């Protein structure tokens, strides 16, 4: 628009709505971008398109009924969500679960972590324009989903980890098939590194883009791979061990700034690759040590905790997933509050994107790996 009164041409910022229908917002997220040419001056995320009243709904359900609904929060890491709920509830009830249950839970959670990271890495490649790694990742994720399917019959929303136990014991083929998967999967990590991680164009696009300083990360409460990529060794599996994680030997990979600055998008990407390798280590150890036992012996007949509250947290693929549960002594919770890692992570988007270009918003959004199902709940 030209201001007719003065001879100078007036320029103004362009506001671009990215989403909710956009191929790279990873769900129904709307980003309001203020643009100066192609440079971002402000990013305003608008959330809530996927809101399903999970927390309020919990107050109307008995404790075991909540489990299937936790699946639907972070739908790429349902096993992790269930595990978090089970950990919190068992802490509230004071239940000891059999060792076999704990081992199976760890195996499932780590398989889920690999599956979730595969989606994150694959879609990240697709965001940057490399479509082929995306399908390689989904091919491998499909094998994990098959393992889940033979275990509990569902591919994405399992309702598998119950308070005090599991819905099914392992399928007789599970151990063999999981070992086969690990054997097949190790070379494909290398393949993914060759085709994407160390690609010159990919490094140019991601290194030094969207640098998250440690201080900002801590101030915003970022957790999970995003925090570790900034160089902080913080992992609940090690620092506040739950289930049987303390029995396994594994490393916590952190960002090193190999191709740029510590905490850039490439670091966030690569930490996830390294984490998949660590998860494989955990699964191998858990399969070796897997004890026998009944997986349903500790499931309480009727869950009616004493009045009180509990906070249980687990390390989900996207960071610290916490359940704050208040019980008033009845069979339904008084309040369930979820600390969703993606919700926290999304808050840093505005900080990270300032001064970068439109293409970098996609890079940064992909690298912080959010799931809208968890943000909106």
């Amino acid at each position, binding site marked *: 628009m030209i201001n007719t009164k003065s001879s100078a041409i007036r320029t103004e910022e*362009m506001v*671009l709505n990215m989403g909710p229908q*956009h*191929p*790279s917002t990873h769900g129904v997220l709307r980003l309001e971008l203020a643009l100066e040419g*192609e440079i971002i001056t402000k990013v305003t995320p608008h959330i809530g398109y996927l809101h399903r009243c999970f927390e309020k709904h919990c107050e109307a359900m008995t404790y075991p009924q909540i489990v299937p609904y936790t699946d639907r929060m972070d739908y790429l890491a349902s096993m992790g969500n269930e595990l978090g709920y089970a950990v919190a509830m068992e802490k509230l009830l004071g239940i000891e679960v059999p060792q076999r249950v704990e081992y199976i839970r760890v195996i499932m959670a780590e398989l889920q972590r690999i599956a979730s990271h595969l989606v994150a890495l694959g879609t990240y*490649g*697709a*965001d*940057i*324009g*490399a*479509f*082929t790694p995306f*399908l*390689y990742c989904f*091919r491998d994720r499909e094998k994990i989903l098959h393992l889940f399917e033979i275990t509990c019959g569902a591919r994405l929303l399992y309702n598998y980890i119950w308070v005090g136990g599991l819905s099914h014991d392992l399928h007789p083929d599970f151990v063999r098939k999981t070992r086969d998967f690990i054997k097949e999967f190790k070379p494909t990590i290398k393949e993914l590194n060759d*085709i*994407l991680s160390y*690609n010159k*164009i*990919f490094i*140019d*696009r991601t290194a030094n883009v969207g640098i998250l300083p440690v201080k900002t990360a801590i101030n915003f409460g970022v957790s999970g791979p995003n925090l570790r990529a900034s160089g902080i060794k913080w992992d609940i599996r090690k620092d506040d061990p739950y289930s049987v994680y303390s029995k396994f030997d594994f490393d916590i990979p952190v960002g090193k700034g190999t191709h740029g600055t510590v905490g850039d998008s490439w670091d966030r990407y690569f930490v996830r690759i390294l984490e998949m390798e660590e998860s494989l280590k955990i699964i191998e150890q858990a399969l070796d040590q897997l004890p026998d036992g009944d997986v349903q012996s500790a499931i309480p007949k009727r869950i009616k905790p004493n009045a009180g509250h509990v906070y249980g947290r687990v390390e989900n693929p996207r960071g610290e997933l916490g359940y704050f549960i208040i019980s008033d002594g009845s069979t339904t919770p008084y309040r369930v509050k979820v600390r969703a890692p993606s919700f926290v992570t999304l808050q840093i988007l505005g900080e990270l994107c300032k001064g970068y*270009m*439109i*293409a*970098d918003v*996609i890079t940064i959004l992909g690298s912080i790996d959010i799931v809208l199902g968890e943000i909106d709940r």
Partner: protein
Amino acid sequence: MMYDFFVDLFGNTVIAGIASGILMSLLPLFLFILPYALFAVLAERKVSAHMQDRLGPMRIGWHGWNQTIADIIKLIQKEDIVASDTDKPLFNFAPVLVFAGSYAAFAAIPFSSYYIGSEVDLGIFYIIAVTGLVVAGILMAGWASNNKYSLLGSMRSVAQIVSYEIPTMLVVLSLVMVSETMSLHTLSEMQTGYFWNWYIFGGPGFSLTKFLLIPSMLIGFIIIYISTLAEVNRVPFDIPEAESELVAGYHTEYSGMKFAMFFLAEYANMYAVSAIVAALFFGGYQSPVGYLGNLLGVEWLIPIEQFLWFAAKGLFFVFVQMWLRWTLPRLRVDQLMAVSWKYLIPIAFVNLIVIGFITLI
């Protein structure tokens, strides 16, 4: 030339005149571009599928070979949606212009020694000029759509095509210096004989110049291949239609047959630039190893063989484009500009000077 061919074949000037006239005007469109586009779209899907552990289209016809035809029929039947608040004349004209620009380039491309649409002396110059129309069409499409994504896509596209035309032209200029002709037909004729006469191997004849030229020609080939890749908006330079950023770039708002025209133009363009690279550096329609027609003493077989050789060379480069597309990520806008202005143009310029000195010797 087509006329001469038919006179040889029929021995009657009237029939030859009519037949050559019809063929001359229709051959590129109906005998080459359309079948090629149908084939290339399917090939793209099949190539990508097999690179990605998939099968690709399998349902329609044997291994899905009818898929593109079904898609085109679907696109023809679709409602022609024109959003409100678009600049309608420009919106409707843009796909035509883009298609016309890329189709017109085929007029000066020599498919064989007997078939060349129009043997203009400034063939290569004409092609570079006429493909410039595509830029205008893309800008029109982006502006007329009244969509911010389209506008961003078209602006990126124009900046990209204009930037990458410079290295292309510098390389073409060096070829023109060596061969002293601008006609693609003459250029192809000069590279006759065996493959060591191709310009990628220094050109015809055995002299010191030829061997001095080989490294420069290799550099020239690499530069022109990269920059033509950018000119037809292919990965890693597909920024104008960057699917994950700009939805579909300048053709976001187009549907039905208008979209199909953009699509067709893209594939026609892919072949056009491959054909130019083949004509400049890889002997054009010349066979690398000699002709079956010469061996058997059947004169009329030679042009057909030449046509097949030319198609094969072009399709090979199209295949390489697809290969790159399904392997590489995409550059960012500023990085894309840096590749052209910081690397390709200076190298191409130095290369031009070096080739100039060598030709002086």
